[in-house]
């Protein structure tokens, strides 16, 4: 490619209609640790591969998956400080939604707001695009939310009454790219090992809506292990969070997967990986295509 100066400033199109600065920002993401999200029937799992860049780092700290509101979590791949900026904006959106609307922000709306925010950083030459691709997971409560300022329990029937049969809410998973582009996903992957991870996610047939949250945790751990490239990177730490409905293990909150469960999943992942190596090299073939 001949660079003709159209790639030196953000918000400038090249003659063939590309915004190079956004493409370069995407390159920053491609070097980040793999991050994935799985939308299960009864919850969402987020997982990230944290490459250990130095032995001096304190193990088990330096968390990379952030809580944005009680029911929303965010994981990103790319420039870590940009990810933190993104999270802080997400928190502002969530809390201002609560302040004005007096209810938790739906996952679809926070994704939309943040998509717009990221997109704005592609419009002006005075800023640079975000060097992160971000996965947002959330659970919208299926319970009837209390009306703010409600005193007493409200009418049982008639105007303002409730239709008991109506149901809403559920899991939500979205991924936002440096361009501001975002989609809803059944399974999302970004970072170094995204190609491998995407392949594995496709095999889970998530669109059928049959995978349970607990299975999702196991799969997420396995996929991060499969996507990790031993030859290029040193050790890594697996960080996982999950969100379930009111009846599930996290009671509608975004929380870290309990250490015991995570270790179990990691053990199973390592075992599955060993078995796979003996069988075939199909996963390696996938990687070459990238």
């Amino acid at each position, binding site marked *: 490619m001949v*660079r003709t*100066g159209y*790639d*030196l*400033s*953000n918000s400038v199109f090249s003659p063939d209609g590309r915004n*190079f*600065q956004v493409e*370069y*920002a*995407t*390159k*920053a*993401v*491609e*070097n980040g640790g793999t991050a994935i999200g799985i939308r299960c029937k009864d919850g969402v799992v987020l997982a990230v591969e944290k490459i250990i860049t*130095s*032995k*001096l*780092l*304190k193990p088990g*700290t*330096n968390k990379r998956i952030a809580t944005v509101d009680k029911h929303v979590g965010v994981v990103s791949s790319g*420039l*870590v*400080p*940009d990810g*933190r*900026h993104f999270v*802080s904006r997400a928190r502002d959106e969530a809390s201002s939604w609560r302040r004005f609307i007096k209810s938790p922000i739906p996952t679809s709306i926070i994704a939309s707001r943040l998509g717009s925010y990221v997109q704005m*950083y592609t419009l002006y*030459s*005075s*800023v*640079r*695009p975000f*060097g992160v691709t971000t996965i947002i997971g959330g659970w919208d409560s299926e319970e009837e939310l209390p009306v703010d300022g409600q005193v007493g329990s409200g009418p049982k029937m008639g105007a303002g009454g409730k239709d008991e049969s109506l149901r809403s809410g559920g899991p939500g998973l979205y991924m936002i790219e440096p361009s501001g582009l975002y989609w809803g996903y059944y399974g999302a992957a970004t970072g170094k090992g995204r190609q491998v991870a995407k392949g594995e996610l496709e095999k889970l047939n998530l669109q059928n809506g049959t995978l349970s949250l607990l299975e999702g945790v196991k799969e997420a751990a396995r996929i991060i292990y499969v996507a990790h490239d031993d030859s290029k990177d040193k050790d890594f730490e697996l960080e996982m969070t999950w969100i379930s409905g009111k009846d599930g293990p996290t009671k509608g909150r975004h929380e870290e997967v309990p250490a015991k469960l995570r270790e179990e999943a990691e053990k199973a992942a390592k075992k599955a990986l060993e078995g796979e190596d003996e069988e075939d090299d199909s996963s390696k073939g996938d990687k070459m295509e990238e």
Partner: protein
Amino acid sequence: MFRNNYDNDSVTFSPQGRIFQVEYAQEAVKQGSVVVGLVSKTHAVLVALKECSSYEKQLLYINGGRYQGIDDHFGIALAGLASDARVLSNFMKQQALSSKLTYGRAIPLERIVASIGDRAQTNTQHYGKRPYGVGLLIAGIDVTGPHLYEFQPSGMTQEMVACSIGARSQTARTYLERNLDEFANASKEQLVQHGLKALKNSLPQDKELTIDNTTVAVIGMGKVGKLENFKLYDGQDVSVWLDLDSEEKSEDTSAATEGAAMEIDS
């Protein structure tokens, strides 16, 4: 001649997705003289070389040299542009004070470190701003124990078991990596010694650690949940730690440490 077009400002990505202005700012950290930080289960320690440029000296010796005690429970050491560090330390002082006034709580370290990280990130995403040209080690204690954090111009902050930044700090880091397992259960005296040894490793061949070029800062969990406040040892005061180090060379290690420890406590 090759000319890098992508390094003029901090709002331009290179085709590889790098931001050169931020990387150059990291170089400024490497120009500063070396500082070392490390933590045990009970203490956090910073040791540093005082060879600042005369510019740095003018700015910093007014207020405690290369360290800043930000609050009773934590302090920082810097490598790089001291004036940038001043901005960050003033900000941290405000945050720490605000936490005390609003909640009556010593600010949790992870949060104050994150707040300067977020501030630094902004400088890397907007035209007309420049990244901070300083690296910090933040050491302190809160209710969850002793902590050490590294802050970089990119806005990256990481919790470390031990760390060193500044000129020739790689050799200090190598020392720290080799002795990593000994820090957790080390006494205050042993921890400072490890710090001084790491520091010595990064000195040029002909240099030695003396009371004129070395400073030490210690913070610890005192008895019965009380804090041993952030304490700075400078000038003559450093001699207790340096003596400790030389004694150890000549004599039996454990005996020397115990003797010196008693001396300090009295």
